[in-house]
């Protein structure tokens, strides 16, 4: 359980995050969507204990984020894969757990590599893996840590759309199978809707939550959901929130018109 209580983060004059209140329940898949600079990454970093809030507090499983870090209760996945280039895939999966001081579990690391579809690539170095495969290793690494909470900061941001959609289906399946709590930050509206049980929409300047959607799509979620009408409607609903918040000046500057 994550409790975000009145969190504000300012950098000099920039109000990156402004009084955000949010609770993430155990086992929930929450997505945070918004344009660049809306503070969604900063908010995630406060939950992971990587960014100290200027005011307000974050509790993870009832404790401070520092305590959560010390207990390795948070598995982080970054936009860049952050694999160590001199280690093989299976060594990279094992690395975070080792750094957290948890007992080694080589068999578990191999099992997770199989789970993310990388059987046979155990000894491959990152340079020999595609962008999507590297992120699969990074996801396996975060799960292997054994934390209940996974924080994902645009993990598919550098991947092509087809790979993103496939990984979206897989991350939902893994989340169910491994019983995790996920906070997933993205700037892709379809991705945010497809993955979410609940989708939080943020806006910038100052970075704040403007709307929260409960996503009602079939569970378990398969790739069929992408082409369903319900999916398209909910994507449209999130989009309309993001667009209505635009300033008049921005709308006037748009030269796009209906044909």
């Amino acid at each position: 359980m994550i409790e975000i209580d009145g969190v504000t983060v300012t950098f000099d004059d920039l109000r990156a995050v402004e009084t955000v209140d949010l609770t993430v329940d155990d086992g929930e898949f929450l997505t945070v969507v918004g344009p660049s600079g809306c503070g969604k990454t900063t908010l995630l970093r406060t939950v992971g204990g990587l960014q100290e809030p200027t005011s307000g507090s974050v509790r993870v499983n009832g404790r401070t984020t520092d305590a959560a870090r010390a207990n390795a209760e948070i598995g982080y996945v970054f936009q860049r894969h952050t694999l160590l280039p001199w280690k093989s895939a299976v060594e990279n999966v094992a690395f975070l757990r080792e750094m957290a001081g948890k007992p080694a579990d080589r068999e578990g690391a191999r099992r997770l590599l199989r789970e993310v579809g990388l059987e046979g690539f155990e000894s491959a170095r990152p340079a020999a893996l595609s962008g999507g495969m590297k992120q699969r290793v990074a996801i396996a690494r975060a799960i292997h840590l054994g934390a209940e909470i996974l924080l994902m900061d645009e993990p598919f941001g550098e991947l092509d759309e087809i790979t993103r959609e496939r990984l979206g289906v897989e991350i939902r399946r893994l989340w169910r199978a491994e019983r995790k709590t996920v906070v997933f930050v993205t700037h892709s509206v379809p991705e945010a809707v497809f993955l979410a049980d609940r989708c939080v929409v943020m806006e910038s300047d100052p970075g704040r939550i403007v709307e929260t959607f409960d996503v009602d799509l079939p569970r378990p979620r398969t790739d069929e959901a992408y082409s369903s009408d319900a999916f398209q409607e909910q994507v449209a609903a999130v989009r309309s929130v993001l667009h209505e918040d635009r300033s008049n000046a921005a709308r006037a500057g748009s030269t796009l018109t209906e044909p």
Partner: protein
Amino acid sequence: MNGRVGEPGSTVTVADVALPLGGLAIATAAWWALVAASDVPPYLLPPPDAVAAVILGNPGLFVRNAAATAEKVAIGGGVGIAAGFALAVSISRLQWLRRAVYPYLVTVRVLPKIAVAPLLLIYIGTGMTTAVVFIGLIAFFPMVLSTAAGFERVPAEQRDLLRSVDAGPLDAFLRLELPYAVPDLFAGLKQSVTLAVIGAVVAEWIVADSGLGFLVLLASENVQVDLMLAALAVLVALGLALYGLIVVAQRRLVWTSTAG
């Protein structure tokens, strides 16, 4: 991460060995032909076999002096390299130290260290200590600058990853920072060792008691070109051996990758 492809761990073909050896053979033959065809007296340009005979005629002399030079390189180079590594580690952790020291490291690098030698003679005198300090000074700069640059290669997100599980500073250093720095560390090490050999020869000209540099100086004063060339040949062999040691260590320790 450029410039590392094909260095350690690459396979060696027959041509890789045969072509340089062929080049050496042709150069030696040309030397021979020049001596035979011209009127240059042998005391000014002895043929290659005469130089070889000088080495083989008194191997003890060369072994003794090579050992003296190697000792200076090992002690002086070791001191300079260790100090350079220690300072690189320190400035990678302490921002204030980095800001206080780094500009001067870059500036002093352009100073020809040889110019400092006369000053050392006045301060420390003509002994082994002067040689060690001088060689250490020369070996220090490439080591500290390369290693410091290596530590800068650690991506910020990698540090965040370790912070996210509260990894200890020693783990972070040994498992993340040092491996990232190790290719640059070896680049610095190669420069430092090469410069340390140069430093040793210069030190032997100044301190002038033993070593291959001293042998060259002695041969020069007596116009013994064959002895001089023999000493130079042994010096090349010594330099190559030291360089080779580092390359062997590098092959064992450095990870290879074309993409980070």
